[in-house]
């Protein structure tokens, strides 16, 4: 019987069985390998029993239609969670003026605690993650509402401090229930917290956190490389292999967005130079970062990282070409050149792909 310890391994095993069956059918059609009927029956029975065992222990997709339905359920779960979050916010705002301050405080603290308990309870009863994901989103929204409205009730001066518990709570829920969306939300909340605190320390208003892209650049780099040290300190059986791509996606998106920002607005840099050389520096750095991302992605076979690096490289290239040519070149010629460059990039990527095979 199968010895998989996690859902990811179980899904990979089920995918291998499906591929094996397809290949076996193809070999039989090509008359390369034709199993005797009793052999085929024994193989099928064994594979069916393995699949039944996997499906009994893990929430995995055995057929392609099941896989499509799972994606649909994931989308419905996220949208449903967001709708419930909106309902929680709007309901509280509808009634809070009609109740006393102590009642408001009790409701605000009890709501995330209750949602957290229900999430934990449901996750222990349900094998599928959809209801858990929906309820975890509601728990996070209730906690955001809790601290935000507490600030309004007691007229507390605005500060980035709340982003620290929000981020920690989201990451805790993400790790407990294997929820990638909450991990991304938690990482972004911590980025806002660190940027806000850094700005406050330098005498600026914390809400300008998005106006200092070098702070995101640094946060993004730390987030993108975080999976390696995290894995080192996490026991093998407790690692979540779905999370490393989320760290890389969030981290690299922060890096690329901040580079694109600094590319256009050198004035927002901490570097003590005129804005023009700073912009040129970040333009060169942006291309190097995108190329390096593709290279690392190929070396480590991280498909998502390669795609993100390629998308960033293409966007950077088009932005640069637009800055060089748009003003003086006839528009038809500009788009023709863009099209030709896209074809050139496709040829390069195809060559790279062939070398990887």
């Amino acid at each position, binding site marked *: 019987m199968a010895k998989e310890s996690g859902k990811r391994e179980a899904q990979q095993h089920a995918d291998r069985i499906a591929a094996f069956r397809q290949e076996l059918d193809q070999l039989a059609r090509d008359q390369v390998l034709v199993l005797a009927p009793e052999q085929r029956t024994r193989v099928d029975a064994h594979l069916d029993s393995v699949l039944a065992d996997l499906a009994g222990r893990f929430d995995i997709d055995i057929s392609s239609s099941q896989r499509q339905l799972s994606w649909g359920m994931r989308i419905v779960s996220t949208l449903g969670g967001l709708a419930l979050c909106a309902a929680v916010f709007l309901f509280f705002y509808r009634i809070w003026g009609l109740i006393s301050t102590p009642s408001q405080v009790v409701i*605000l603290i009890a709501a995330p605690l209750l949602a957290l308990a229900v999430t934990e309870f449901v996750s222990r009863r349900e094998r599928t993650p959809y209801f858990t994901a929906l309820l975890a989103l509601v728990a996070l929204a209730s906690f955001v509402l809790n601290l935000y409205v507490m600030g309004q009730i007691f007229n507390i001066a605005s500060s980035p401090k*709340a982003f620290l518990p929000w981020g920690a709570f989201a990451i805790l829920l993400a790790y407990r229930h294997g929820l990638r969306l909450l991990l991304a939300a938690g990482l972004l909340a911590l980025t806002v917290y660190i940027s806000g605190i850094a700005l406050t320390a330098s*005498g600026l208003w914390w809400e300008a956190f998005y106006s200092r892209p070098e702070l995101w650049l640094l946060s993004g780099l730390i987030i993108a490389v975080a999976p390696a040290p995290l894995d080192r300190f996490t026991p093998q059986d407790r690692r979540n292999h779905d999370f490393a791509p989320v760290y890389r996606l969030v981290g690299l998106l922060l890096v690329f967005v901040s580079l694109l920002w600094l590319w256009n607005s050198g004035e927002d840099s901490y570097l003590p130079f005129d804005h023009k050389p700073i912009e040129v520096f970040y333009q060169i750095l942006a291309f190097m970062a995108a190329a390096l991302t593709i290279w690392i992605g190929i070396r480590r076979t991280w498909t998502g990282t390669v795609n993100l690096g390629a998308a960033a490289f293409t966007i950077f290239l088009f932005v640069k070409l637009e800055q060089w040519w748009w003003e003086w070149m006839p528009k038809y010629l500009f788009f023709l050149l863009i099209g030709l460059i896209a074809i050139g990039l496709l040829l390069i990527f195809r060559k790279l792909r062939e070398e990887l095979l």
Partner: protein
Amino acid sequence: MSWRTFVLGAAIILVANVFALFGVQRNRSGEPRQSISLTQRELELSNRREENSGISLRLRFNGQWEPDDARAGELGFSPNENASIRGRLSQRPVFVALECNGPRYAEWLEKQERQQPTAIEVVKQSWRTQFTRLFVADVARSPEPLLQKYANRENYLVVRGLATATVSYTDPVTFRRGPRRIEVFVSRIEPGSIHLPLPLSQLDTAHPYIVDLSYGPRFEPWATAIRKGAE
């Protein structure tokens, strides 16, 4: 069955709330640091809506302030630094001394009447009966100098705020193009909105009102009483 994650999650929620409530308790315990009575001219009431039953008061103030380069520099605004005058980066947290119905309002009223002699009577009346009388008297990076100077004076209030810088090429005296200079004004008071809890929120908004405000050591306000003002 291990409930360790639940306990950890609950601890995050409770610790964050304890911190918030401890701060509130510290701000409101003992004698208020500052108290002031303001009318509907300075504290505009938000309308109760179907989707939001909460009631709050928005602090209305005149943020004009004309520091010289040295005072602007004390707040961290450098006349030559490009980065300090862009977007949100032009905002710096400061402490603001607000003056209510004092010489600055009288001066502003006189200036309005001098600059707009042909204004119709309704407009002139609104300057005297509807416009805010809360004016910026002084700004500093720390509260101590302002508290020393203003805290015990009637109708003065020291609060947190945001100073914003813009670049101007207009000479303030001749109104013609002049050399590049930094203009600094107070763009926001923090918190700018004051929540009214029950039973204070059951106020008849059809009539003028007076709100007694208190500020604690964290410069966070709360309404202590609300009563009918003169028509």
